[in-house]
């Protein structure tokens, strides 16, 4: 390749600054942003397929034991479920607003809405904790420890597939809750970075990607809520 060492034409180079966030192997900020976003979408569908396994388990056991699933579902607290749905939907709105503002360089509002999201996620987890402990008190555990007692739950003891319902319930909401916790950590970090002024309308990729992740967590709950609590 000795013949190819002539310096490259540099006519456009001088006119172009090299933003700090641009990694060397990308040609432009747009390419980097588009790549990151496509990467995130691809990651999101892996998440969707991860949850799909549990939806399949739910569908199969529900189809085999529809009455048991209805009976078991009725022991879940619809009020807490509905409140949590509203909480998560609101947190989705706040995260969307934080992206809305960072695109306009309004860093303060962005941080404010990110922190709101964090707070709502915290509320969601607290409610989840209340629900879990209420179940544990009555011997509703996943798996072998399943031993329902108490007036509201006793009738589950003799039902063939009731343990399956609650196993699926705990696994689904547990893995979903794990995603909420991870989301909280990420949102916290992003809020901190935003507060430090790391983001602007020029570069806000991490905020955007975190938002996408958070919306997916919301979408999963949108399906979990009716399946587990309502029908």
């Amino acid at each position, binding site marked *: *390749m*000795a*013949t*190819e*060492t002539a*310096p*490259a*034409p*540099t006519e*456009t*180079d001088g006119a*172009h600054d*090299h933003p700090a966030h*641009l*990694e*060397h*192997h*990308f*040609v*432009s900020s*747009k*390419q980097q942003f*588009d*790549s990151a976003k*496509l*990467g995130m979408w*691809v*990651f999101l*569908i*892996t*998440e*969707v*397929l*991860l*949850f*799909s*396994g*549990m939806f*399949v*388990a739910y569908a*199969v*056991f529900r189809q085999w034991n529809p009455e048991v699933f209805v009976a078991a579902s009725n022991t879940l607290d619809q009020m807490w479920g509905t409140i949590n749905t509203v909480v998560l939907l609101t947190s989705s709105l706040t995260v969307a607003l934080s992206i809305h503002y960072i695109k306009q360089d309004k860093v303060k509002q962005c941080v404010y809405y990110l922190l709101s999201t964090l707070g709502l996620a915290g509320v969601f987890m607290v409610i989840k904790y209340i629900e879990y402990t209420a179940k544990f008190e009555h011997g509703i555990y*996943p*798996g*072998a*420890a399943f031993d329902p007692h108490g007036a509201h739950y006793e009738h589950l003891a003799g039902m*063939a*597939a009731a*343990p*399956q319902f609650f*196993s*699926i319930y705990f*696994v689904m909401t547990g*893995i979903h809750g794990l995603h909420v916790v991870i989301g909280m950590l990420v949102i916290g970090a992003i809020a901190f970075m935003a507060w430090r002024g790391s983001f602007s309308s020029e570069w806000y990729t991490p905020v955007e990607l975190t938002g996408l992740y958070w919306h997916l967590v919301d979408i999963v709950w949108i399906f979990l809520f009716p399946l587990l609590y309502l029908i």
Partner: protein
Amino acid sequence: MSTTTQDAPVEDEAHHDEETNYLNHDTGIWSWLATKDHKRIGILYCISLAVVFLAAGILALFMRAELSAPGETIMGNETYNQVFTMHGILMVFLFLVPSIPAILGNFVLPMQIGAKDVAFPKLNLASWYVYMAGAILTIAALLTGGVDTGWTFYTPYSSTTGGGVLWMTAAIFVAGFASIFTGLNFIVTVHKMRAPGMTWNRLPLFIWGIYATSIVQVLATPVIGITMVLLILEQTMQIGIFDPALGGDPVLFQHFFWFYSHPAVYIMILPAFGILSELIATFSRSRIFGYRAIALSSVAIAMLGFLVWGHHMFVSGQSAISSIVFSLITYLIGIPSGIKVFNWVATLYKGSIWLQTPMLYALSFLFLFTIGGFTGIMVGVLAVDVQLHDTYYVVSHFHYVMMGGSVVALLGGMHYWWPKITGRMYNETLGKIAAGLVFVGFNLTFFPQLVLGSRGMPRRYANYAERFAGLHELSTYGSWVLGAGLFLILGYALWSLAYGEEAPANPWGATTLEWTNVAAIPDHHNFKRTPLVTRGPYDFHLADEVFGGGDGEALGDDVPRIPEPAPSAPTEDDTAASASA
């Protein structure tokens, strides 16, 4: 920034080309362990996978030794069960699934599309570390009592048996992420990082193969992840999803498992298709016949591959209606594979065929994969599968596809890209001898197993009836020949690293960018300038740079061809336009 040259420090350039390359621009163990260079990550993967392949291969030789005669020969049932389980798990999850994408995909893909790196280099490195974490968990499983469930982990045996099953399922869960990271990276890279002029129709078929693979990796791997999580919960908390004693359904586990593991077969074979297209085109110096058919059939196979998992379950107790549907779709997927074979053979027609070692592997592949395909049709026939399921016929069938297909293609690809990876040539004579040994040894090992299986020899048997003894013995002899061939390859590969002849930039006269526009040993940033692509990947008649000026002047095999790279990209607008295409 518009051109790529600005990354290469101008003052260095005079020395740069001769002396620094991706191997020596930075040294020390840390420069490798912290590298974000796709080429170095490819090599890290190559070393790890070679160790795994060696371990799993030695286990296979032990299995064949045990089976050389009926009764107990060198190990008891318990050991044998652990050995075949480890062979399967190592080969499938830790070798075949990552193999071609992680080694050759990592090394070649960015160069072939004219990119400086994959889209997410850090994620790429993370993929290797996650893979290594999976490997360590596998070792933990061995230390905690080993695993004897078979690589399929069928419940309730896997959820009730002790030993290292818990660690092993965790290992597979973790290793899955390595696979997801690689696939995600490649999808984005192919979409967003192509050089100007590198349209979808000009992508080399290796890229198409890897791209289709990546789709499967991304869509299927999460399901094995959740399956393993549920299995772990079944073991630890008895959640009763898969264990029939607790009201679960063991057949449901098989659905979960095969929803990943059947597409995983395509994770293993699609990149092999890609390699084969490169080899056939380069060594017959002709345009791939039916480029579009091969490219699109890869994607079609990737998608259809998700609809056929139940053909592993014809006798499992699933409903007959699903068996019938799965069987029908299985046939439809056989057709794109057949089209590929016909197209490759047609590519040879009126070519200029050069029988170097990689081409010998390509021709072996055509033979072995065709047998693998036809036996696949056989086991897809509903009524016949009832006889053949879980016998040596199936064992032989998937070895014809996985070993005769994927591994042979990988060997061909490793020989083909060896000069580019190491900058050295391997010994051609030894290469041909080894290719011959692998071919003969493979058939001697696995053809008898086809006959054994159709005669009713069940798989996963440590011991067998006297009437199967002759063919088993033959198969064991074959495994020695195959092993000898593979060890010979290992030997001359190591020899070549130290003493091999220095390789020219384009020893095969290939036309894809990694040969024409990259130095003999690639630069750290791959290209001096981002290339501008003006022709298809196999347009040998247009590829003047391959022939040193296009005057048709005859060059000796030993004369290094001087590549004249395609021109560099003129403006950033073109780059951006193509990148966002």
